[in-house]
């Protein structure tokens, strides 16, 4: 078995975010890391929308990112610290839209190791030097120079190692132009390691150490080290030189401290706490991330706490000396991993889990009534400030970036009864959890819908002047009339436009000389810019049946198949070209490309004829209307469209000017619902590289529109599709919208790139904002972290298990609130009674949404769970069954027991008072619920106590299999509880997943991979007949066939394990006759071993695996996986040896020609934990399309193919299985 790995959707979680002027113009951009992808985002300052400019997978793990600028430069570089053991400096090239590797310095082994630098990065604010550090010991300093050709050069590294020292965080201190200085939070473990009493470890203090790079001596010295009072988790650098006092802010548990080199006093301020918080009062509070904003006149910091509260931090200074830290509650947003304040007044918040946000900073919180806390305020030791969280006051939400991360469980199924399956994903953590339904397609936002007096046939938009930015008229054609609407603030009917209203229209367009043209069956009307109208009448009894128009040319087909050609001459008159041409059969459709910039005409016309052909006709005056080339079609064409797109296909001459090359594509919509796309040679008119795709049931109509400043094709059949070119890749994506009949591009001030379309008797204006997205999603909120869900097969409802550690149930929360209110009342003195009562009431009525303000943290061993019955299509919750405090629901299964075959029972495995580390619980339960036939409610029948955590349950031949700790047990239904039938004690640690197929049971252990088990009926025993030879920390498994199991582990590997053909599972019959085969075992395991047939490192923890068909009907099966980081991918099998051979060679060449961006070796990344086996990485292969054309060409020659063939192969394999 050979497999091909494809990512359908890249990771959506953000691990790092930095901002800077990466493209070199004034606009600030954001570079984010998504684990193994690096992405460039640009927030549009006018609309506030965040656009993705570039996304590159690096086949490595990004551990740190930092932006820096050389002194006097205007452009920021990016330094990436990754697991490659290399320092990589990237530069963004806006013209080519790529990241270019400027430097790559190797310093250590690859991998996320303890002493290999990469975890921390800091760059001197003046861009003179950078430090890269490991968690332990090693620190390297690189000096940046600017060579005479204004190129960045890097010195060889200087070492600043200190052994036995752990680094918590590192920043560069702003020292203006003195020697560059770096501050590290360190701890030395040497004493702790040597002291058996444990006293030294208790006493070990964290230190703040300054490292100075002496530029004169080219040497790094450990300048100064100072012990800190409490352990800190991160540092913030304070602007220095002319901008501020320099120094660092130390963020530690409960305190914020300002420290500077020299004899300046430390300034210390407690982190304010929420008033009347439900959190465990013993908990400390830490800041999780910060952002600095600096202008010429001032600076401030925004720092976010674990609860999501952002504080604005300012420093009071007298001269160079800081006298006070001031903290002011700013606003509360979901907890972030990184924040960026942009110069344009935006705050980008990359959330830990769930969607990311862009806020506009409306106020700086300078002059409001919010309390300001200062380090100068007198406080008792251990005392702190209190504030009251409230809804947003200073920030305004402007954009939201959807993120699936973390996906905890997913299923692909067609529960909604559409013809293609949907992805059902349980996403998120805590109160921000959601059930998301993903459908393949582009999200359409409906800008306007208006009813028309009848059912129109067609719609167009025209501009008044050819260089106008926006369209002026919408023309709607009916069976016997034409309606003209003008576009302004509103859309209104007009009669003075010059268009003939008493006839249906075939086509209309705006001309290059600012005139308009209308073609109707009886003739052509040319409306001049002055308002003058000139008509051309169809000769005799003929009339126009088909036409094609662009800015300068008009071609019409008259009844009888005669072609007439008009061209605009120099005076702006429509000039009738003398010769006409009679075609051999009826003209079905025709299309003209747009006139290329700077030219007088386009040179080709495409015509679809009734004899199942498409012909390319020359419009060159020398051989006008002669046929150039022909394409035979399987069925008759319905519509044609010629567009200029992309730069995927080029010839040798223009390879150098790659980024600006585009080519002409002829799109042919067929009457059987297929779309053909061929490359039209701009010189000879030949058609090459034809690709076919089936789109829908009805004949395909094509429309040319504009998207992202280039042309795109809208194809309409039973569904609407958009074919467009985006970030050097072609997309053909369905629109998630009802079916449309006719459309045209639309551009107005409110909607610069929209579509106007008709559907029955309505006119709709639509916009497509999320180009490049594969899925559109609907999201339904949940209460706690969803762990697992099952689908009720008869009603398609789902049953979700939501379980949260460190949380209170609703009931406990209410009690806690009551209790606290009571305390408030009691604590008040005589005269304050009234006030206290009011406060207590206010506290009880206070309702801050937990999805923003976060849920109270209850402490370890506190659990809250619910079981929810939900209709995933409508998002309606039918019932929510809450478990009591500290009962953690762990596993769920639907079972039909053999003694009551028509009733579904829901089995939920529950652990009481579960502790995570070390794992122990006071008791476990298997709860049995009866499900009503409509799956609307569940009713508890009985609880079966068990002694350990039931992590996995599964139905098996009318019985229940449960994994209770390490015990595999079989239960049958009883009156008072489930009845234990038999048990197997030979699974080593903890059963995390049980799957059953036929007679076999596949049991996954938490760290020892999969065990194959059979039930021995005669002796009522569960017998392990085979196991795996590798340790795997399984997260999920999927049975592919009777012999084969796919497994995924915590470290991001997917492996496929198969039983060899000679394995015997006939446990009822012992071939040895003396009971030895099943009891004896081999190498401390089962007597028979499974083989590994495929292994692959995905790079993200995989949380679900499913074998399914993504493209119905009769599509091919693939293995779909989802990850915690929010990516969705598939493994697809190769069907022919030839394909496998081709891709193997392509992958090999790509590895050497297109080495990963951040210096990690591709092969070693994919073999991170186990050597990659029998899986070809399609993500690497698909980078072929974004390589430089010259490289593409040379690589294709090595493969003995053309670049077009290679990219067609890539497209074919993707399309056959997925999207």
């Amino acid at each position, binding site marked *: 078995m050979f497999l091909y790995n494809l990512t359908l959707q890249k990771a959506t979680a953000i691990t790092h975010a930095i901002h800077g002027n990466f493209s070199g113009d004034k606009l600030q951009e954001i570079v984010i890391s998504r684990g193994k992808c690096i992405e460039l985002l640009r927030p549009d300052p006018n609309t506030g929308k965040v656009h993705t400019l570039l996304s590159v997978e690096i086949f490595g793990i990004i551990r740190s990112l930092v932006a820096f600028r050389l002194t006097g430069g205007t452009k920021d570089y990016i330094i990436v610290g990754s697991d490659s053991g290399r320092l990589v400096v990237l530069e963004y090239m806006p013209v080519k839209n790529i990241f270019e590797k400027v430097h790559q310095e190797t310093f250590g082994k690859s991998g996320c*190791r303890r*002493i290999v630098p990469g975890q921390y990065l800091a760059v001197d604010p003046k861009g003179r030097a950078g430090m890269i550090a490991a968690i*332990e010991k090693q620190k390297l300093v690189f000096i940046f120079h600017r060579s005479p050709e204004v190129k960045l050069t890097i010195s060889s590294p200087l070492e600043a190692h200190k052994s036995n020292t752990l680094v918590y965080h590192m920043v560069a201190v702003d020292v203006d132009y003195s020697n560059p200085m770096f501050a590290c939070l360190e701890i030395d473990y040497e004493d702790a390691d040597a*002291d058996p009493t444990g006293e030294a470890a208790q006493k070990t203090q964290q230190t703040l150490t300054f490292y100075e790079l002496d530029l004169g001596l080219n040497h790094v010295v450990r300048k100064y080290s100072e012990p800190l009072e409490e352990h800190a988790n991160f540092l913030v650098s304070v602007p220095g030189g002319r901008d501020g006092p320099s120094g660092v802010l130390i963020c530690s548990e409960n305190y914020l401290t300002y420290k500077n080199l020299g004899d300046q006093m430390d300034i210390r301020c407690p982190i304010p706490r929420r008033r009347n918080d439900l959190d465990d009062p013993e908990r400390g509070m830490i800041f*999780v991330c910060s952002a600095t904003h600096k202008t010429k006149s001032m600076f401030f910091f925004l720092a976010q706490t674990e609860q999501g509260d952002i504080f604005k931090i300012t420093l009071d200074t007298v001269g160079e000396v800081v006298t006070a830290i001031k903290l002011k509650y700013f606003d509360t947003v979901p*907890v972030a991993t990184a924040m960026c304040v942009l110069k344009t007044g935006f705050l980008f918040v990359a959330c830990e889990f769930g969607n990311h946000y862009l806020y506009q900073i409306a106020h700086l919180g300078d002059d409001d009534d919010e309390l300001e806390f200062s380090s100068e305020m007198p406080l008792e030791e251990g005392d702190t400030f209190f504030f009251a969280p409230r809804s947003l006051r200073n920030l305004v939400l402007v954009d939201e970036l959807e993120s699936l991360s*973390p996906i905890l469980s997913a299923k692909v199924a067609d529960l909604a009864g559409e013809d293609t399956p949907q992805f059902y994903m349980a996403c998120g*953590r805590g109160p921000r959890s959601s059930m998301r339904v993903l459908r393949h397609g582009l999200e359409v936002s409906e800008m306007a819908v208006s009813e028309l007096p009848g059912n129109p046939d067609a719609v167009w938009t025209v501009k008044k002047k050819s260089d106008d930015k926006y369209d002026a008229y919408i023309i709607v054609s009916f069976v016997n009339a034409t309606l003209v609407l003008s576009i302004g603030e509103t859309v209104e009917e007009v009669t003075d436009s010059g268009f003939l209203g008493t006839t249906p229209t075939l086509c209309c367009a705006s001309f290059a000389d600012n005139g308009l043209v209308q073609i109707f069956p009886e003739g052509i009307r040319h409306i001049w810019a002055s308002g003058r109208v000139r008509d051309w009448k169809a000769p005799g009894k003929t009339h126009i049946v088909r036409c094609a128009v662009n800015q300068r040319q008009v071609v019409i087909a008259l009844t009888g198949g005669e072609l007439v050609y008009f061209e605009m001459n120099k005076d702006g008159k429509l000039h009738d070209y003398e010769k006409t041409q009679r075609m051999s059969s009826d003209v079905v459709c025709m299309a003209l490309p747009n006139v290329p910039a700077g030219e007088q005409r386009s040179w080709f016309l495409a015509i679809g004829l009734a004899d199942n052909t498409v012909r390319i006709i020359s419009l060159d005056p020398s051989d006008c209307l002669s046929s150039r080339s022909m394409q035979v079609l399987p069925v008759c064409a319905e519509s044609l469209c010629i567009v200029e797109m992309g730069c995927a296909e080029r010839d040798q001459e223009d390879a150098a000017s790659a980024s600006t090359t585009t080519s002409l594509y002829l799109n042919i919509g067929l009457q059987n619902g297929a779309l053909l796309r061929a490359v039209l040679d701009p010189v000879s008119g030949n058609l090459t590289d034809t690709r076919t795709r089936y789109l829908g049931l009805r004949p395909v109509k094509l429309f040319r529109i504009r998207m992202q400043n280039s042309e795109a094709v809208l194809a309409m059949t039973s569904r609407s599709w958009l074919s467009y070119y985006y970030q050097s890749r072609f997309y053909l994506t369905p629109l998630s919208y009802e079916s449309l009949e006719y459309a045209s591009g639309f551009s107005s001030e409110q909607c610069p790139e929209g579509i106007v379309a008709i559907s029955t008797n309505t006119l709709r204006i639509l916009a497509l904002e999320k180009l490049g997205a594969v899925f559109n999603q609907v999201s339904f909120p949940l209460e706690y972290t969803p762990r697992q869900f099952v689908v009720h097969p008869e009603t398609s409802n789902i049953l979700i298990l939501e379980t949260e550690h460190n949380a209170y149930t609703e009931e406990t929360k209410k009690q806690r609130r009551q209790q606290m209110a009571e305390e408030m009342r009691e604590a008040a003195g005589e005269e304050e009674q009234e006030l206290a009562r009011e406060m207590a009431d206010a506290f009880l009525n206070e309702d801050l949404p937990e999805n923003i303000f976060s849920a109270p943290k209850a402490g370890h061993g506190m659990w809250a769970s619910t079981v929810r019955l939900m209709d995933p299509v409508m998002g309606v919750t039918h019932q929510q069954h809450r478990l009591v405090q500290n009962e953690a629901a762990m596993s769920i299964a639907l079972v039909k027991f053999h003694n009551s075959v028509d009733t579904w029972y829901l089995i939920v495995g529950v652990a009481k008072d579960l502790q995570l580390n070390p794992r122990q619980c006071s008791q476990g339960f298997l709860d049995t619920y009866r499900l009503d036939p409509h799956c609307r409610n569940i009713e508890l029948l009985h609880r079966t106590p068990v002694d350990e955590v039931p992590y996995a349950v599964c139905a098996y031949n009318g019985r229940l299999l449960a994994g209770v700790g390490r015990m595999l047990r079989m239960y049958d239904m009883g009156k008072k509880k489930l009845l234990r039938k038999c048990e197997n004690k030979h699974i080593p640690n903890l059963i995390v997943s049980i799957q059953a197929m036929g007679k076999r049971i596949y049991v996954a252990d938490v760290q020892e991979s999969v065990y194959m088990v059979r039930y021995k009926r005669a002796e009522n025993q569960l017998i392990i007949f085979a196991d795996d030879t590798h340790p795997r920390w399984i997260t999920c498994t999927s049975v592919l066939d009777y012999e084969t199991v796919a497994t995924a582990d915590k470290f991001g590997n997917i492996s496929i394990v198969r039983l060899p053909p000679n394995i015997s599972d006939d446990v009822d019959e012992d071939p040895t006759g003396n009971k030895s085969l099943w009891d004896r075992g081999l190498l401390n395991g089962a007597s028979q071993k499974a083989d590994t047939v495929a292994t692959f490192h995905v790079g993200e923890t995989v949380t679900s695996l499913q074998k399914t068909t993504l493209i119905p009907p009769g599509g091919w099966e693939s293995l779909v996986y989802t990850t*915690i980081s929010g990516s969705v991918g598939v493994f697809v099998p190769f069907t022919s040896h030839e394909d496998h051979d081709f891709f193997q060679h392509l992958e090999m060449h790509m590895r050497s020609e297109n080495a990963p961006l951040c210096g990690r070796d591709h092969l070693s990344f994919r073999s991170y934990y186990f050597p990659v086996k029998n899986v070809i990485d399609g993500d690497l292969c698909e980078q072929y399309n974004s390589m430089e054309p010259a490289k593409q060409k040379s690589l294709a020659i090595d493969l003995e193919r053309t670049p077009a063939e290679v990219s067609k192969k890539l497209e074919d394999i993707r399309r056959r299985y997925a999207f």
Partner: protein
Amino acid sequence: MNPMGDRYNIYSQLEHLQSKCIGTGHADTTKFEWMVNQHRDSCSSYLGHPDLLNYFAIAENESKARIKFNLMEKMLQPCGPPPDKPDDN
């Protein structure tokens, strides 16, 4: 290479390796030392791989920064205080 110096070499190479790479074992490595190194290596790996950090953050329902902080704190003494060493003399 000089065959006479081989014996010497192995020792000096080993010594070099031990000083360069923390955790390189030697003949007298105790179980505890080995364990401490294992734990510190594991913690570093958890800190380096974002999805492992996410995994812990979801399981424990704590912020990622808190998980990182806890892991760093744990690295000081991951397996508790060292056992009493019997006197060699």
